[in-house]
């Protein structure tokens, strides 16, 4: 009886997930999209590694890698081959199971996020009607993997790095989620496909403050510069992946870039209008927009120095979180009180609020020269 009820719910969910005009039925849809997603993630990671190294190189007035393959296109392949050939060293006091499981636990949620990202109208692995909530929930599991890596290495500096990472990720969840709620209010639905369909004009124009908060919080979640203290090449800890070598290290390296692609994909879906665009096929527009967002991440990485750990935390709690709350309240007022207002009026109001809030808040919040303790 209970089993029958469970089966019933299962088929209802599955039928809901597959669009009605998809040929071949449920299992064919699932297989096709699983394969497409895995290939997409792996190819995009290689592509973004290449873009980052060449782009950063050109911005620093030098060439990036250009010897492996024509224009250096096979450089990520060379990296992968090099990493595969390295010896797999496990420290003697390490907790073997935890040490082995950590890369898996860190990588799987990133793949799972792509299940709800739309490549075309209705072309997703699962069109859940709680899409964006699923993304937020699943992306937090990756942090558990990082902490397992720090713990399982039995190295106190890895543990220190992992704890810093967990603290940072947990702090930045709040502004991230609040920025998302602003978009959800405008679109009226949690499903990612519906959010894209609701964007006659991209939400970046209607929610500039939300975009900025999401971008900063997203960069902090994935440990990208200027928030990359966890993998800082200078300073004492090499981070939570010190004791990893060989394929496990490759998984962490992959996680870093795959998360960057995931955040870029979510930004495209929520703020830039997903797959919508005039001339090219929709999935090509999607890829182009993801690459543009990733390029902006590379650009900020090249230019900005790193923040300190206590400055990182205070940025989350004192600067982004109140701004996200104010953004939410303003969006809620706009949606409720002015539903029929012309869009360009709303755009002007939102940009004016952005231009007023950021200087005001930085004046209140930005203090210099703090952080010294009396010893």
């Amino acid at each position, binding site marked *: 009886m209970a089993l029958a009820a469970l089966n019933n719910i299962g088929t209802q969910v599955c039928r809901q997930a597959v669009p009605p005009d998809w040929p071949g039925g449920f299992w064919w849809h699932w297989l096709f999209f699983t394969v497409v997603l895995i290939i997409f993630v792996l190819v995009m990671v290689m592509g973004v590694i290449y873009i980052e190294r060449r782009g950063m190189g050109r*911005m*620093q007035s030098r060439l990036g890698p250009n010897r492996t393959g024509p224009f250096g296109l096979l450089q990520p392949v060379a990296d992968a081959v090099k990493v595969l050939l390295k010896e797999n060293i496990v420290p003697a006091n390490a907790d073997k199971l935890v040490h082995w499981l950590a890369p898996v636990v860190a990588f799987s949620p990133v793949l799972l996020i792509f299940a709800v990202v739309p490549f075309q109208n209705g072309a997703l692995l699962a069109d859940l009607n709680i899409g964006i909530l699923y993304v937020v929930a699943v992306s937090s599991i990756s942090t558990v993997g990082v902490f397992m890596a720090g713990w399982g290495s039995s190295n106190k500096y890895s543990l220190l790095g992992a704890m810093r990472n967990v603290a940072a990720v947990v702090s930045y969840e709040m502004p991230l989620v609040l920025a998302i709620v602003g978009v959800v209010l405008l679109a009226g639905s949690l499903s990612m496909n519906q959010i894209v369909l609701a964007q006659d004009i991209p939400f970046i124009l209607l929610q500039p403050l939300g975009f900025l908060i999401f971008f900063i919080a997203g960069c902090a979640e994935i440990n990208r510069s200027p928030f990359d*203290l966890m993998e800082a090449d*200078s300073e004492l800890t090499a981070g939570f992946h010190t004791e990893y070598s060989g394929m496990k290290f490759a998984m962490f390296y992959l996680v870093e870039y795959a998360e960057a692609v995931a955040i870029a994909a979510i930004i495209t879906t929520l703020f830039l209008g997903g797959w919508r665009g005039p001339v090219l096929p929709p999935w090509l527009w999607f890829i182009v927009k993801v690459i543009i967002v990733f390029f902006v991440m590379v650009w900020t990485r090249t230019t900005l120095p*790193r923040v300190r*750990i*206590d400055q990182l935390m205070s940025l989350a709690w004192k600067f982004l979180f109140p701004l996200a709350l104010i953004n939410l309240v303003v969006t809620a007022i706009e949606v409720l009180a002015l539903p029929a207002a012309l869009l360009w009026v709303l755009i002007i109001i939102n940009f004016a609020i952005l231009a007023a809030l950021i200087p005001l808040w930085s004046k209140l919040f930005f203090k*210099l020269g703090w952080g010294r303790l009396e010893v």
Partner: protein
Amino acid sequence: MAIETREMALKTEPFVLNFGPVHPSTHGVYRMRTTLDGEVVLDIEPVFGYLHRGIEKLAEQRTFTGFIPLTDRLDYISSMSNNLAYCLAVEKLAGIAVPERAEYIRVIIAEMQRIANHLIAVGSFLNDCGAYFTPFLYMFRERERIVDLFEMVSGQRLLYNYMRIGGVSQDLPDEFLPALRKLLDLMPSYIGEYERLLKDNEILQARARGVGILTQETAVNCGISGPVLRSTGYRWDWRRADPYSIYDRFDFDIPVGVQGDCYDRFRVRIEEMTQSLRIIEQAIKDLPSGPVQADVPHLIRPPVGEAYAHIEAPKGELGFYLVSDDSVAPYRCHVRPTSLINLTALREMVRGWKVADLIIIFGSIDITLGEVDR
């Protein structure tokens, strides 16, 4: 020395962490044993000597002229200044007058060396802050232009061995002055580029303003010199206070900082580069013709006596103390090591800050281990 742990609900204990001799952010083989409480630095204990080569003792086995290549290797980033300080000391000891053209060439070369040194100092300071090599590579581009000119003049790119006792070793080639003219025209726009990239950058301000403050009294008491002293607000420059060579003929300002934090040291170095460009412009205009080396024998035997000569090297006051006993080798040569003496204030500057600030403060003092260890 008592270390107190702070009153916290969770009882913690300080631990000793070794920033080993091999570390990507210490500028050379420098070891610090830091006592940390979590992330806060309580105390540091420096251990150096990993690059000691016995240069002062080797001086007693080399002739006065033969020691010049070894002075290159002291502060290997700005090696023309080391040559200059040593040659001034020997000229003071032996009473040699340097011809006019050689004096002007020495000033031009010394100021170009100052710019090249500050480019590396600022570049590696920003690298320690975390700007992933971008300002570092931009500054190396400019240093490349200066080093090309040094290569044209002396033949080598890092350890020049250009100054001699009584002047310089060879005259400037014909294409030096047009190329230097081009460099002087371009350089202000490059310095403008660095300022646009970094001066108002909020993250840099948050990291470096108010961090690692050195007060004027501490600086003067410790014997600090150079940009570190000037950043505390104390306007002291040996080119004005005790002019050596022909620096009293040139017109330049001495930039000072306000508080003595890392940001002020960074700004003082950038301003000093602009002032050096002014001095070079004036020197090129008045460059006379004539011999470039006084008539000095290769194996010089100064009379018995002792002399100390100091210059305003890019890192601070570099001095050479020479004692001669009428033979071809010095009886005793002692180097006043700028970097070592500037480093003695590190402990005062760093206590109470975090590990990330320790790296930045250490980078902003700008040391070279060749000078610390000799």
